């Protein structure tokens, strides 16, 4: 009986964690170099983890990052806020021969796709995460 209760507790915790993770979305980074020895990076990170990870990141590293990005933080924050109103939009698309760059919002994520002969880069970040990160970086600006 006790084991069943523990199992139920664990299962419901995992279920809630899974629901929370999926609600927040996933940050996806794919980098592929189509040549011998080329690198292939495929990264899937639950967006819910990022604000927590930022909180535990070394303070001096965060401050440096915040200082570097400081002039653009209000822009990122406002952009994230505005992009949330447009969950499905093709914002920029450049096609030049076999090269293709696309910036769009899809399913509440900001997607940046770059394809050119020999390599491709795909980045997808939930728009809400952009705002969360900008808020945390703002908190780390010395004197802010």
């Amino acid at each position, binding site marked *: 009986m006790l084991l069943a209760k523990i199992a139920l507790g664990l299962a419901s915790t995992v279920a809630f964690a899974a629901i929370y993770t999926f609600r927040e979305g996933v940050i996806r980074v794919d980098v592929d170099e189509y040549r011998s020895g080329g690198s292939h990076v495929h990264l899937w990170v639950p967006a819910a983890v990022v604000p927590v990870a930022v909180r535990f990141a070394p303070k001096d590293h965060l401050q440096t990052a915040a200082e570097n990005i400081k*002039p653009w933080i209000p*822009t990122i924050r406002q952009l994230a806020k505005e992009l949330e109103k447009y969950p499905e939009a093709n914002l920029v698309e450049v096609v030049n021969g076999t090269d293709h760059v696309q910036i769009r919002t899809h399913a509440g994520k900001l997607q940046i796709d770059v394809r050119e002969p020999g390599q491709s880069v795909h980045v997808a970040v939930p728009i809400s995460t952009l705002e969360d990160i900008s808020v945390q970086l703002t908190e780390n600006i010395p004197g802010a």
Partner: protein
Amino acid sequence: MFNRTQHFAGVSVLSAIVVLAVASAAFGQSGSTKDRWLHVRVINSDNKGETVRVNIPLELAENVLPTINKNHLHNGKVTIDQAHMNDVDVRALINAIRTAKDGEYVTVQGTDQDVRVAKEGGRLLVRVKDNKSSKSNRSEVDIKIPMHVIDALFSAGKDELDVVAGLHALASLGDTELVSVKSDDSTVRVWMDSKNSSD
């Protein structure tokens, strides 16, 4: 008595329908002015066939631009470098055009180019047509800017263009084409509508 009640009920239902219709029309109009998109499309017909498509919600641009402070852009305003104005008082020029009646202001018919600057229906129209003999250089440029957008652009202080005010003025317009450039090797189109894609 029954007839009066029936009449009153009929009038009430009719009034309710009219009020709902007016409200929904007003709501629909405010929604349509809010969801305005600025589109830019550049198509190069060279061998690589470069295509650029930009679709920006006006509201997004209006709200994000004031946060950018870089080079000549500050708080949604662009500082105009007087050194590049060739001593032309643009503000006085705009003022003169605003107060002038509709008509053709400049018409140049040259061997190389035809130029027409006119004001029509509250819009400033600029048309430049290339007449060069070489077919590959021929181009047609059409610019149609509503006067109230120009007014908004120049509503900031001296030597400044208020881009955000210009965008805000644009948002009140219906579907409209602003710039069109056609040449043998490329086409450029800048227009505004309520669609979130350019095709």
